[in-house]
């Protein structure tokens, strides 16, 4: 398959891995954070850790929108959907995320009208096809998905679709990175920057990371070769004593971002003063709400929202794992109380969460290290 296979080419991959080993040498320990959950998933799915020298450590960052969504928001969304006239629409990603009384999928099994949609505009289509019902789209995601929500709301208003609203949980990536860098217990050398988010926001918003925090950051694609090449670029910067924003994912990410998408976001959204992130607490100006000019299509303004706050169990150490202080398996609950079937903490919820990725792909692997070559 073109566009995929060329970035999975074994010889190129092994040459790039050799280059990483050569650059990393053996003296120094490197700690890279991949911010984006898509990268975390790819690193595990392609077994990239096996190709890295032991002195390169990958810390999994906060860029999984499902993982950082507090449980109270899910409860709020589902409570609105208790009304018999409401259809609850969301991405497949949300369907297994547990609220206090179960996930959207479990609510569906008990009779709630829950639909999986593949884009916000599909949810709008659903509303038009069901004029007697109200379709609530439970919106999640970073700047990757926020523009399509914005465009859908613009269209809903232009077409005067009254039976449609968005329960907005869109968050923004930069404040989360700032919170990570402000954390006193964190030691990081560099960042692998998010790919899809940067398609929208471009590379400029990361410049302060290089300038003020003196950390190199390379915006990366999601294929094995993309990620390895990004690590080569980070190592070269570190060894030259530099800290710059570099764009490895040029085939998709323009330096200035996508202006049309940004304009749509500005038209529809404004920053919330603060928003709760699961595992990280309240972060100021880190999330989007729908502007009053679109109040009719904002579930939170249109309906009474209970505003539930649910704290994660004390024993769950999501925050420490999220900041890279603990590895997933070092959490007290990992693999025992907290599993992908019964997630307790946020990071076990989505397959992009570092705990779920570790559990699905890495857990139990240690026993076979170095015994992998197929029998001839």
């Amino acid at each position: 398959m073109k566009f995929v296979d060329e970035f999975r080419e074994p010889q190129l991959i092994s040459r790039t891995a050799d280059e990483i080993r050569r650059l990393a040498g053996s003296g120094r320990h490197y700690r890279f954070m991949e911010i984006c959950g898509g990268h975390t998933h790819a690193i595990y799915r392609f077994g990239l850790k096996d190709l890295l020298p032991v002195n390169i450590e990958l810390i999994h960052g906060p860029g999984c929108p499902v993982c950082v969504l507090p449980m109270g928001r899910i409860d709020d969304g589902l409570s609105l959907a208790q009304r018999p006239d409401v259809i609850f629409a969301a991405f497949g990603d949300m369907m297994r995320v547990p609220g206090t009384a179960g996930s959207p999928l479990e609510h569906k099994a008990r009779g709630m009208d829950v639909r999986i949609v593949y884009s916000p505009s599909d949810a709008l289509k659903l509303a038009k096809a069901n004029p007697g019902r109200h379709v609530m789209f439970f919106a999640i995601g970073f700047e990757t998905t926020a523009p399509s929500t914005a465009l859908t709301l613009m269209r809903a208003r232009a077409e005067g679709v009254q039976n449609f609203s968005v329960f907005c949980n869109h968050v923004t990536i930069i404040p989360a990175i700032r919170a990570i860098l402000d954390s006193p217990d964190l030691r990081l050398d560099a960042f692998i920057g998010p790919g899809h988010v940067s398609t929208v926001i471009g590379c400029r918003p990361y410049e302060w990371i290089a300038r003020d925090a003196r950390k190199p950051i390379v915006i990366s694609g999601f294929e094995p070769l993309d990620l390895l090449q990004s690590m080569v670029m980070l190592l070269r910067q570190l060894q030259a004593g530099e800290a710059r924003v570099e764009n490895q994912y040029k085939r998709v990410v323009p330096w200035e971002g996508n202006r049309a998408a940004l304009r749509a976001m500005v038209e529809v959204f404004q920053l919330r003063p603060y928003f709760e992130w699961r595992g990280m607490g309240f972060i100021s100006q880190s999330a989007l709400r729908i502007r009053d000019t679109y109040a009719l299509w904002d579930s939170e303004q249109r309906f009474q929202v209970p505003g539930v706050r649910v704290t994660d169990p004390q024993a769950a150490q999501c925050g420490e794992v999220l900041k890279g202080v603990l590895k997933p398996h070092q959490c007290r609950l990992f693999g025992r109380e907290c599993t992908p079937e019964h997630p307790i903490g946020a990071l076990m919820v989505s397959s992009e969460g570092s705990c779920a990725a570790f559990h699905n792909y890495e857990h139990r692997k240690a026993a076979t290290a170095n015994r992998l070559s197929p029998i001839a």
Partner: protein
Amino acid sequence: MKDDASAPHSAARIRFREPQIEMAHGAGGKASRKLVEGLFAPLLFGASAEPLGDAAQLCLNGARMAITTDSFVVKPLSFPGGSIGELAVNGTVNDLAVAGARAEALAVTYVLEAGLATTILEAEVRAMANAARRAGVRIAAGDTKVVEHGKADCMYITTTGVGSPIAGVNIDARSVRPGDRVLLSGPIGDHGITILLARGELDLEAELRSDTRSVLPLVEVLAGAAGPGIRWMRDPTRGGVATSLNELTRDCGLGLLLYEDKIPVRDAVRGACELLGLDPLHIANEGQFLAVVAPSHADRAITALRQAPGGEDARIIGEIREQPAGAVLATTPYGGSRIVDMLVGDPLPRIC
């Protein structure tokens, strides 16, 4: 203490603790297994330590036979390459085949929703008759129930099959040994992705057909070429190849090394999976089977399969190892590796 009548049951350990049944309990992955092992098996099968296979072996008056049953609920009822009637025959024939048995007779139960168009029912009954003729199995008994409109999704079909043993084949996960080879009969994911696309909820189209077919002819070819070397077989339906292989490693207590680049997957399936964030190893198949074969028989087995009609894409996709015990490890062509777990719940597309 309770009275004697409940004695065997009170000894059973019910480990299933979920307050209610969720969709995932029917999806063929981990949750399904927990329900079967935690509730059905202890109450219905008592203390039997037999691994749960696709079909059960019975001995009646000295005659060995295999029995299995399966219910079919699929939406839409018909899709490119097949329909529910065809699935209902092939599915049960295949469950028997991978248990080392040739389907001899089927009993069929239809649960019909009031309001179902007769033309649709007739089409499905014809599809069953044709599939049965192709698979060489007799439909010997049947039953019909009709439920109120809205209480069933058009129609559900249950088929129960009995089969006679294929000579020289003995299927038992506990006979699997390190060094054994893992065979796959052909490309994976065709059925699951075809159904996903046929539901029309995605704006995606692809030239794909369900792979529904009887695998009995290929199983018989395999039995002829490698009969005594066959240790285990399974048709990877719901939950896909990943789930079947994980069940194998759990049942035999050994590890399985999967050569990821050797697994045949059509471009259309790969493309859809890449777009939707799905793993082809978790996607359902209705016309493929997996087999574990002793290394001494592996070459002959694969050669015979590839010469048989419909077996051209058969491959050796892995091998049994001591480690990681109870788990499946996939190797990538460039030296990385990952654990391949069972499917949890239904495969759901990832967007954000």
